[in-house]
């Protein structure tokens, strides 16, 4: 069972806990797998289709296994006016994936987030849970290199 320990904490058959359960499953496994959806379905008594319907409504849920590092480029307003679109574009180009995808070597997943609320440090890029503020496309590129990304020409 994928989510036995998680489900044990919640009352059986109470739909009100669907989203907290999905969040815990994703926190533990990195994504919500079809098997996990089936288990949750049996536990709260809502069809798998409907659970997928709820989960897919919310941007936070992933349905495929994410990469080793999750790179999140903030696209909030403060980041936008300070050039975050250029940063996202650069990361997409360097990693050869679009936002929402994972690199073929499984090293990075790239996501865009609406706003991290760190607007005073704009533009902001998150790698896993680390916040990196005052970014530029050049600094973001250097950041990826630290995590083993980018293969382009070196600076210096």
């Amino acid at each position: 069972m994928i989510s036995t320990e998680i489900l044990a904490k919640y009352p059986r058959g109470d739909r009100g806990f669907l989203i907290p359960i999905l969040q815990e499953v994703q926190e533990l496994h990195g994504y919500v797998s079809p098997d996990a959806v089936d288990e949750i379905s049996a536990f709260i008594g809502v069809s798998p289709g409907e659970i997928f319907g709820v989960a897919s409504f919310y941007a936070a849920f992933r349905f495929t296994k994410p990469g080793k590092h999750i790179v999140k480029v903030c696209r909030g307003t403060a980041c936008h006016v300070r050039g975050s679109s250029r940063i996202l574009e650069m990361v997409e180009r360097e990693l050869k994936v679009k936002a929402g995808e994972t690199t073929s070597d499984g090293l990075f997943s790239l996501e865009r987030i609406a706003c991290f609320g760190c607007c005073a440090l704009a533009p902001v890029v998150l790698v896993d849970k680390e916040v990196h503020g005052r970014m530029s496309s050049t600094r973001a590129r250097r950041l990826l290199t630290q995590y083993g990304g980018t293969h382009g020409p070196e600076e210096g």
Partner: protein
Amino acid sequence: MGDDITTVSVHVNLTVPAEVTDAINNPDHKWIAVCMGTGCTSSASTELHKALREQLDSHNLNGQVEVRRTGCFGFCEQGPIVVVYPGETFYTRVKPQDAKAIVEQHILGGQRLDRLLFHDPATNAVAESWHKMSFYGKQKRVVLQNCGIIDPENIDHYLAKEGYLGLHKAVTEMTPQQVIEVVSKSGLRGRGGAGFPTGSKWATARQAPGTSKYVICNADEGDPGAFMNRSLLEGDPHCMLEGLAIAGYAVGAKQGFVYVRAEYPLAVERIQKAIQASRERGLLGPSIFGSDFDFNIEIRLGAGAFVCGEETALMQSIEGRRGMPKPRPPYPAQKGLWGQPTTINNVETLAWVPLIIRQGSEWYANIGTNTSKGNKTFALTGKVNNTGLVEVPMGTTLRELVFDIGGGIRDNRKFKAVQVGGPSGGCLPAEYLDTPIDYESLQAAGSMMGSGGMVVMDERNCAVDIAHYFLSFTQAESCGKCPPCRAGTKRMLEILERIKLGQGEPDDVDRLEKLANTVKIGSLCGLGQTAPNPVLTTIRYFRDEYMAHITEHRCPAAACQALITYEIIDACNGCTLCARLCPSNAISGERKQKHVIDTKACIRCGVCYDSCNYNAIIVH
């Protein structure tokens, strides 16, 4: 203070150790505040805190000088922030390696460290203490009064600041009706956007028939560019919890929910700890203060859907459904969560409640303007010199906010517009700088109060690009339930996209306006009803700029990627960095010679512009 309370209530342990009361309220207490908000922890304030502790240890000063982890000071731009008391010496951009000098020079030697003081770019002056800085000069920190002062994870600190006295007064001395009356009389209006009178909301929920009632704190601060609620929750979580408990008492609810964004992990953690601490003290749970009022609070995390900030969608989400709004009426106050009367208030609204109960409706009604009472917090960001969280009385003008508190525009550029109210608000140009900040004035100008995001733009920001940015956000976040919002925002976005590409048609601006008005009138919820505001205001105030894109295929601000050209000027010393970084090999030149960009091969990604250390690349 703590002792007084214990004598009136035997059921609750509100005793605050004498040393805590002294640490919080004695102006001569020696302590160092280290900001532990998300902004400062992102700039290594955790390591800095540790370094200060170690330095004090090595000089045997532990026990004599307290190092306190506090919430946000608001001046996140200059973080990590450290304030040394007594004296309120305000140090900015402090690094862990500065800890030694702070302890040895300042604490032991009594010498201020001038290099860490804030140099005000606007006045060129050095600000030696917190309240002498222009950033704080016109601010009045009331709802934020504990942020930066108390340790948010220590309930004793909150209690020493008269915390939970509002709840105590409400529950032990007032009837629920009296609580509602005080809140109504104060003139408190919702801080989440629309500004609905809080007292009326509560009265409706109180009167509505139902088997159980609910109160919800809306902390789903989804507006991009807004972080007021995050800072408040991180810096003073108990004031929101106390406000929510008072709301519960007033409307007759036993259960409260805090719906908070999962993107705010630190805020979530602090709320969790605060709930736990309040339970342990009997401030949440059964028979609060020995009365028959039972109240509990649970946290629900948002899952990345902006529309869940809308109250009916938020309740759907708590029920474990897709967060799609429902038509109103019935209003949540009549039929809300699980069909029961439910009150939903914003974090900041609730944070005012304990203060109003404690200090009275007149005290509150005396702050602000005739129709908009109290102070409002704003997240001041974008192209201003001083970015951060600010709190000003209603009626303060946009000019005071941008130029006095914000210190004017960065790099001596020209002010262009300020976007008030996030994706639901509007872009106000220089002519509106003297607009007082209140619900009605902002609405009359085509914007709205919103939750408090305030993003300042300079001449390098393009009006069409900003409208496109906001609309692409609301379009993506539209839940898809009602056609005007689902299809209307999509069609509007397509038009904006082609204008940005220089492919707009002459009637496009009129077409946009027509569509915008249809979406406004026809949409079910606030998201669709307000989504066209950024488009309508930019057309209203910057129509020429739209026309330049359409008729001249030119972006006057040089921001729309398809319409710009990068050029290398004589300042180039031939360092070759840009040529090596250019992803399309569009830059050529010999080492130590001026380089050239092949505009045909250039994909306008801006990497050269961002990387040049000699400002030798311009865009036009």
